[in-house]
């Protein structure tokens, strides 16, 4: 009988060949024989196979030690290994498993392809989706190297976790985990792709063309074509680029992908090569993969992601340019699902007769039309030279009209904010109104010292009522200051109206209102009623924001500081 050691060596060698599919007839017969006749061999056989499976476990691999990139091993180690092969003691003759006896040969296998019922196949593929996630995760083992595969291109207020320490712009980045705690950053991969990161985000750089996104969102842009497909893996999906710009967002439940340009393939499972389902996404299409591997098309707002152009705005904002600070704030505002309308008063060439709504959820359907009633208000310089404002002249009828839309028929909680400016002789008045005669969804005004009604002079008005006129909804007295930009805001939770000036809460009044929804135009610079000429707005309006929720003081302060000229 063989000694244990001899038996183990022979078995381990035969099993290795068999596991790898490289065993020949003679070797397999020998293995079969050993296992059949020797109980010790069967016990050892199972343990050896446990070793095979165990060595594929990443926890075990962590104990291999960091040996560097393939091809860059310490020459002394290589030499030692080669030397070891030369001086290794010869196996005893009776062990059989010498390479000269059992030749390694490539065995051509006859694969039997079972006939499948198509329905069962489809069902099986669907059912497999979740399981594949588990199966493939074992196989995908990113190569490890300490060589840089990317560098930090740009950063805006970026704060990284302590694991990597401080990372400066231009620093080389080797593979490994990264965690951006605050701010935004751009990474340039060595294959030419740029990746915009928005905090908080956790990811692993795997290769120069592959990233594992654990949580957060990023935008990948591949301008220079490369033979390598860029791949973003996530815990339960893979996004494979086909030459494009795309965003990927991961949370605990889904992976979302949106294509801005070009095409990507969204695959279930985190192994780009083994997947149970896939969906091609073209420009402006989005898709979602859930933890079970199910893939569906989905509308994903482009504002979800910070793109290259947005990143540039952030950079300029960081450079203390107020206009870009204001633009950078929009990334946050436009992700607010309660944002009903956002009129930025930016003049668009070729669309001078339109007041554009920048709120992504409502978009162009809530654009306003200039000159609906009479003349167009005049485009003038706004808070900064990069943007415009509209000058309303009370002596002319210059109201802007946004056609009635259910998105603006807000009867519940609401916040309205506006930037206004007055010259010496200007008199403020109705800023905006959404009403149908005596049914008023909301009406925001600021009346000046010359208002006909003494009780309303120098007060901000937030009027909401249904049928029954009210005298509630007025702030304490606030005198407009000429030649200054004023940030006015009002909120109403159907019980209390709060008035803000330049981000500060100046007063609140009780005003219980129960509204019914109605279809009414939104009018800017006046009210949708004839007459009331002395109530029209007289001055500059630069921005209007409407949300169907109540913003708190700190949110309105943030909006003020973001937009302060």
């Amino acid at each position, binding site marked *: 009988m063989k000694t244990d050691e001899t038996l183990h060596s022979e078995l*381990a*060698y035969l099993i290795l060949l068999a*596991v790898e599919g490289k065993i020949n007839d003679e070797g*397999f017969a020998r293995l079969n024989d050993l296992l059949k006749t020797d109980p010790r061999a069967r016990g050892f056989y199972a343990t050896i*196979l446990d070793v095979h499976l165990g060595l594929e476990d990443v926890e075990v691999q962590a104990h291999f030690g960091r040996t560097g990139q393939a091809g860059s091993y310490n020459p002394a180690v290589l030499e030692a290994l080669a030397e070891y092969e030369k001086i290794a003691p010869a196996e005893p003759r009776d062990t059989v498993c010498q390479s000269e006896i059992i030749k390694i040969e490539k065995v051509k296998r006859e694969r039997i392809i079972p006939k499948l019922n198509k329905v069962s196949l489809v069902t099986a593929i669907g059912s497999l989706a979740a399981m594949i996630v*588990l199966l493939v995760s074992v196989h995908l*083992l990113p190569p490890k190297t300490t060589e840089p595969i990317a560098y930090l291109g740009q950063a805006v207020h970026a704060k990284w976790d302590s694991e990597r320490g401080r990372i400066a712009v231009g620093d080389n980045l080797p593979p490994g985990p990264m965690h951006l705690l605050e701010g935004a950053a751009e990474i340039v991969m060595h294959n030419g792709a740029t990746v915009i990161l928005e905090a908080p985000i956790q990811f692993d750089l795997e290769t120069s063309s592959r990233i594992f996104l654990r949580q957060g969102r990023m935008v990948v842009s591949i301008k220079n074509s490369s033979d390598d497909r860029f791949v973003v893996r996530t815990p339960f999906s893979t996004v494979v680029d086909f030459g494009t710009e795309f965003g990927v967002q991961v949370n605990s439940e889904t992976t979302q992908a949106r294509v801005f340009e070009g095409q990507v393939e969204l695959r279930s499972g985190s192994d780009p090569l083994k997947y149970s389902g896939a969906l091609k996404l073209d420009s402006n299409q989005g898709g979602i993969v859930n933890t079970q591997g199910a893939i569906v098309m989905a509308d994903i707002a482009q504002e979800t992601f910070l793109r290259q152009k947005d990143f540039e705005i952030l950079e300029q904002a960081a450079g203390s340019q107020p206009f870009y600070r204001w633009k950078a704030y929009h990334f946050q505002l436009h992700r607010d699902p309660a944002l009903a309308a956002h009129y930025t008063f930016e003049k668009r060439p070729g669309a001078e007769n339109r007041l554009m709504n920048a709120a992504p959820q409502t978009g162009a359907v809530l654009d306003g039309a200039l000159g609906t009633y009479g003349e167009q208000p005049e485009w003038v310089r706004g808070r900064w030279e990069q943007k415009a404002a509209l000058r309303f002249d009370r002596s002319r009828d210059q109201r802007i009209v946004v056609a009635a839309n259910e998105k603006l028929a807000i009867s519940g909680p609401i916040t309205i904010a506006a930037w206004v400016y007055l010259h010496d002789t200007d008199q403020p008045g109705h800023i905006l109104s959404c009403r149908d005669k005596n049914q008023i969804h909301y009406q925001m005004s600021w009346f000046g010292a010359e208002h006909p009604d003494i009780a309303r002079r120098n007060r901000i008005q937030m009027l909401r009522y249904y049928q029954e006129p009210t005298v509630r909804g007025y702030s304490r007295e606030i005198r407009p200051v000429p030649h200054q930009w004023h940030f006015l805001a009002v909120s109403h939770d159907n019980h209390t109206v709060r008035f803000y000036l330049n981000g500060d809460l100046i007063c609140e009044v009780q005003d219980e209102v129960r509204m019914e929804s109605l279809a009414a135009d939104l009018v800017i610079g006046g009210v949708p009623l004839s007459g009331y000429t002395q109530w029209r707005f007289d001055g500059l309006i630069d921005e209007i924001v409407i949300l169907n929720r109540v913003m708190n003081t700190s949110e309105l302060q943030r909006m003020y500081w973001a937009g302060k000229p």
Partner: protein
Amino acid sequence: MCKKGNEVDKDLHSLQLKNFMGLLVPHQRQIHAFILYLVVNRADADDILQETLVEMWNKFNEYKDGTNFVAWGLTIAKFKVLQFIQKSKNYRFHFDPQLLELLEHEAIRKNGVHTHNERVEILKECVSKLQTKEKVMLDLRYEKNLTFEGISRQFGVSVPAIYKALGRTHARLAQCIKLTLEQRGVA
């Protein structure tokens, strides 16, 4: 709010899948190992595992809560192994039925004695005890996924020499595991 029939079906499906995954995840490696014991070829074992998991999911309605999920899974796995052998009867490298039975007993005996996690823990200890050159070899093969041909090129030695060296390392690891289990009185 009342749910429509297809919504109820969807909810049930999600719940069932969640239950299934909850039972499968901790035991999937055990099922995988069992299949590998019976067929020894890794590629075959992977194929059979996938078929087994699909079958388990399709028959999950028949699984009774509270009964031994692993035993139920292994029964299906064994059936799939036999089906595979029958389908590919021209393929030479199958153990004969008598040996299959012996191996199945050995696999079930081992599963009853210690868990996969215990084996992984012990394997980690054993790997730590290896010499650097052995760890280099394992790293190239299992972490960096190099082929044997690739490793042989790296080291400038023949492919059979790599098989021999890796086989010896496996044997050392298996002996180390066996010894550790014996010392713990669970072998």
